[in-house]
């Protein structure tokens, strides 16, 4: 999966490099962002039946304090 992320990053870097001095930054990013957001929205919606649901068990609950107490660098 990291490979696909990297492939996306590499492809967009090439495209962006090509678009410099050809298309304005606002147009480039605006169109790209709109297309990606639409694709991701459709995909997330399609994935809905399998997406992890919220935890329903009350006894497995994290408190705000645990965010900071449990934090450590490794």
């Amino acid at each position: 999966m990291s490979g696909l992320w990297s492939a996306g990053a590499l492809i967009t870097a090439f495209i962006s490099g090509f678009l410099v001095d050809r298309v304005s930054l606002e147009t480039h990013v605006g169109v790209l962002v709109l297309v990606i957001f639409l694709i991701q929205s459709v995909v997330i919606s399609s994935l809905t039946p399998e997406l992890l649901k919220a935890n329903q068990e009350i006894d497995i609950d994290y408190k705000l304090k645990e965010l900071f107490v449990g934090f450590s660098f490794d």
Partner: protein
Amino acid sequence: MSTITSTKELTYLRILFFTFGLGIMSWVPRFPEVKDALKLTNGGFGSLISTGSLGSLISLLTVGHIVHRIGVKRVLYAASFFLMATLIILTSVESSLIFFFANIAFGAAISAFHIAINAQGFNYQDRTGNSLLRR
């Protein structure tokens, strides 16, 4: 509720990973234009860009718990929206102060999307037994 096949689910996860990389790296080759719009020096722009890690750190501390509490779907929708909205702000703004806050939000949204999508990836891996992500 209807279910989808594991092959389809895998394809959808792949699309999410791919579009994630495609979106967040799109503005990097155009940094000089962003820097010019902000009228900053190389050092100033570099320092400003690195503030994204503040948002990332906040997300890394909290989003796992948020996923636990509200589920992956809502986190993915919110992260996707904030990623794209902040990317538009970052590439069109001329104020360093607005850029600073947008960049923190951008860093937070990147980490939030990353955590949610990987949580789903591990869940897929546990359910199907297919090796998908390295532990």
